[in-house]
């Protein structure tokens, strides 16, 4: 397709309206299976949103190391507008929060890390600017909203993918900044520890926080949602 065909295939009026919408696009999680995969997932979603005209600011919240990779390569790409790269939580840090060792096959450090990393990033995002929406995605996943995007931009509810499990999908969520922050705000490490100790699956923690903070969930379709099967390779 020629470039002028591509340009004219987009509805200009909608692009102009979208440009007034400020979106913080957060990728959080380990840079897996590789830093380059994370960079590709970021580029694809960021570009999709920018082509639709949205005013997008990118955030990366990841650990400095993952297996044999370190985040230096990813940080030096200049891909992200904002970066929060921390050392992975130490066993002592996790132990301050909970004495639990695992959720089934998942080490407790993964679950602690996800909530700790999400809250840290959302605290920064909500203090950094007046965004209209926060898109909160995993790093190891490819997402395309396509024509469904406006179903996801809901001013009231926390929007997540259609449920294929008995619990809310925590892979990606979209909400206004206050709702997003509240949905993931465990308040204190003691509270997070209490939630970890009393829930059966990690996603129940998100559901519990949302219930406590009176956050309502709705689901919406996506054009593409692909969790990298090699993420633990």
């Amino acid at each position, binding site marked *: 397709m020629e470039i002028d065909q591509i340009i004219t295939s987009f509805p200009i009026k909608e692009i102009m309206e979208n440009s007034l919408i400020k979106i913080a696009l957060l990728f959080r999680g380990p840079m897996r299976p590789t830093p380059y995969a994370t960079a590709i997932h970021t580029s694809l979603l960021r570009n999709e949103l920018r082509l639709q005209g949205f005013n997008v600011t990118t955030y990366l919240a990841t650990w400095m190391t993952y297996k044999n990779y370190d985040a*230096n390569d990813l940080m*030096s790409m200049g891909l992200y507008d904002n970066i929060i790269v921390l050392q992975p939580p130490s066993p002592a840090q996790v132990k301050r929060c909970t004495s639990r060792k695992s959720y089934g096959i998942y080490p407790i450090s993964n679950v602690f890390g996800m909530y700790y990393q999400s809250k840290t990033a959302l605290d920064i995002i909500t203090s*950094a600017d007046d965004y209209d929406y926060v898109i909160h995605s995993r790093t190891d996943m490819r997402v395309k909203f396509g024509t469904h995007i406006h179903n996801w931009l809901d001013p009231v509810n926390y929007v997540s993918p259609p449920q294929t499990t008995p619990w809310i999908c925590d892979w990606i969520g979209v909400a206004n900044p206050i709702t997003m922050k509240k949905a993931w705000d465990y308040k204190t490490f003691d509270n997070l520890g209490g939630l970890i100790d009393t829930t059966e699956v990690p996603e129940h923690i998100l559901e519990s926080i949302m219930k406590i903070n009176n956050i309502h969930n709705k689901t919406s379709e996506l054009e593409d949602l692909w969790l990298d099967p090699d993420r633990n390779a």
Partner: protein
Amino acid sequence: MKIAVLFRGPVRPQPYNVVERYREFMSQFINIDAEVTTYLATWRQWKNYKASDILGLDLFDNVIMQTEPTDAHRERCTALKKLQNGADIRPVYNMYYQSRTALDLIVNADNYDYIVHTRTDLQMIFGAHLPQWFNSSYTTIHAKPHPWTCDQMAIAPTKLMYNAWNYGTIEHLGRMIEAADKPEAVLEMMIEDSKVPVKTAPYDLWRLDHRRNM
């Protein structure tokens, strides 16, 4: 003993100068009996330079790189454009916002005994005086009333460092900036409000990079 060393500020005058400052500063902590973890809090860009140029060098253990706050963001804090002494509000707001953001993260990240809080464009050689900087006060280069409390570098127990830079809400930071006659006055107000004990300690060299605004 666990120590967090925070470098905060723009990558100025150029990114490689920050690398030099980092290496020189951190070389003073190699032979002390402590577990030292480094943090960089910086802006994505300084003039035509990009912070990403030094983020691939494997220098810092933890990195917080943010897009510099917009005018609209600052105006949530205060509509004032200049302090009473004529100083531009922008770097003042940025310094307090960036320091607080980084300190929030550091205190949640681990149980550090001390935080060393320094600038990216500051040369500071402690020499044989380094042990005197680790005590039960907020220890800095000079302190009020002679002539005011220095905001360029300090070492303090974690709780005191956090309290000294904790402005509460953005609105409260705005009120303090509006009442300040110079940038350091905001730090002095927070230190007074939270009753943080302050002292000074000797050093061999204290030099702010004179090219920092070039």
